[in-house]
């Protein structure tokens, strides 16, 4: 009873927050609503008994991704009035296409009721929740069954990193950098000169 109630509560919040992400005028508000959506989704995971996923969602998405978003949105100076300028002109044709797509997808969604997925259960077996912990089950999936996908995802991220560096990193002249080797190989002899100063004469 309580579980069902909480489900509906969190599900409603998730949907509303998602809606507000695209509807709110202020982009900062959008990001904040996004965070709210993440939180309620995490709660849904907890309800499903997937506590590991719930925590990861909060730590990674809320803690890292969304905050990063927030920074980016706040630092960029986007003129939203200008962005929306063409909206009225595009609205009719865009709306028609959008509505058509929506109608079609609703047709598809209703088909779900009468046509249960026939291939379900053909993937790796779901382990008994009492026997193995959440974390271990996920680990097994990732590092045995889907090791290929896991490694590939790693490569994708690596390429993203290379790309970011290639496209943005520049060697700027005149910037002082720490050269550790130089620091270590420095001896007192290079750095310090002992000068006898006679008093009253200056250097």
């Amino acid at each position, binding site marked *: 009873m309580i579980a069902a109630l909480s489900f509906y509560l969190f599900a409603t919040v998730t949907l509303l927050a998602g809606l507000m992400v695209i509807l709110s005028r202020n982009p900062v508000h959008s990001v904040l609503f996004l965070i709210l959506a993440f939180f309620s989704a995490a709660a849904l995971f907890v309800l499903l008994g997937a506590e590991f996923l719930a925590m990861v969602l909060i730590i990674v998405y809320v803690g890292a991704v969304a905050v990063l978003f927030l920074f980016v949105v706040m630092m960029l100076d986007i003129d939203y009035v200008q962005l929306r300028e063409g909206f009225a002109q595009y609205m009719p044709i865009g709306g028609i296409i959008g509505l058509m797509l929506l109608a*079609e997808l609703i047709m598809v969604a209703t088909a*779900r009721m009468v046509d249960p997925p026939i*291939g379900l259960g*053909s993937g790796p077996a779901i382990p008994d929740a009492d026997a193995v912990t959440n974390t271990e089950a996920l680990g097994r999936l990732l590092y045995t069954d889907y*090791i290929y996908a896991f490694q590939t995802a790693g490569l994708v991220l690596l390429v993203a990193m*290379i790309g970011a560096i290639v*496209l943005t990193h520049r060697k700027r002249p005149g910037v002082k950098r720490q050269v550790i080797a130089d620091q270590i190989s420095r001896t007192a002899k290079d750095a310090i000169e002992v000068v006898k100063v006679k008093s009253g004469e200056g250097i």
Partner: protein
Amino acid sequence: MEQSYPNLIPALPELWLALGALVLLMLGVFRTNHVRRTVNNAAALMLAVAFFLVFAVGPTHQVTFSGLFVSDGFTLFMKALVLLGSGAVLVMSKPYLVDKDIFRFEYPVLVVTATLGMLMMVSANDMLSLYLGLELQSLSLYVLAAFNRDRQRSTEAGLKYFVLGALSSGMLLYGISLIYGFSGTTNFTILAGLYSGGATPSVGVLVGLVFVLAGLAFKISAAPFHMWTPDVYEGAPTPVTAFFAAAPKIAAMALVVRLLMGTFQGLVADWQQLVVFLSIASMVVGAFLALVQTNIKRLMAYSSIGHVGFALVGLAAGTTEGVTSLLVYMAIYLSMTLGAFACILSMRHKEGMCEDISDLAGLAKNQPRMAAALAIFMFSLAGIPLLAGFFGKLLVFLAAISAGLYTLALIGVLASVVGAFYYLRIVKIMYFDEPADAFEAPESRSIGLVMGVTAALNSPLSFFLISPLVAWAGAAAGALVL
């Protein structure tokens, strides 16, 4: 834990490239920039080794990594083409990059990772591996398109490709989720089993398939998902454009074929008309819009759109014969495109590289050999008999006719007639117009080599090569269509 280790043998080429890419990256990072030539050569060598590994793995049907990865005669054929395409582009790239002062060690590394992604696409046996391979390839390509980061056109091309590519990935993912939601699996083998028996699929699976198809159509730049192609081809550095036109098309085409013929062959009646639509739209767009182009890279973009349309004619047939013709077409397309780009990469004035069609004027006088080669490529692209391009077109049209798609074949023949006009225009400019400024003699022997070999392949000599090619493609198609 009686988990056994996955069988790594079928994925040897991929593993080799993955490790190799990392080694190259380290080499580039920890040594000074002088190693960029070494890295480039090493990368080319690595692709060559991968080429042999592909053959070492052989055409036997093997599935590994919990059903995510497949290797068979079809993947053998496609991987060989992809590696040839990538390797050829890599050895041709240097002069252009040096000229534009963007010859950096990341370039070969990114080419290798993109190639790796393509091999993964070709070998995908699950929606998951399909998507990951596709992203690995695409991400590398986005960066490559913007590689000349100080030039506005190049960054614009990269950004455009990235934004639209993200949209197409979104469609693809949405389609995958629909398919998973309505069938309960993402594995190709299981999906094929579900629908081969003539079972009526849920409408959700079909709509999902359409979305996936749309995402992939973007990658092969079939109309109406082609709009990015001309802009990106024009803006990207020329070697990258050559790369775009060659290898990724083949990999994405392999995915389309694997998905439609290997996995959803049971639903051929449902997807056939969609492919016909894509095919006709691409042929028409390619033929007509190319007529008015003045930039040769843009022209090649429309040309590639048109050729994808022709290749899809074979797929629309929905038969083993059709797939054979498509494979033959792609192989021939690869050689034509590489050759044409070898010529474009040799278009170099004193002031630097140039890419206007009018710069080719009088080429026959200044550089008769290059003009002859380019003429062969243009005639071949136009599908004039005696040259390789003709056989490809002939086979796809015959396949379509055998399958009863008369209208499609008719439109195809018509489009090829219109297309002949603009290819011919280039030949006319080269041979008959008043000479423009002479190009500088090509300094790179490897470009000349690629040009020579592909010209020979496309020349009437292809008459003797077509027979083994058809036989091989037939074997590959047989491995796919069960």
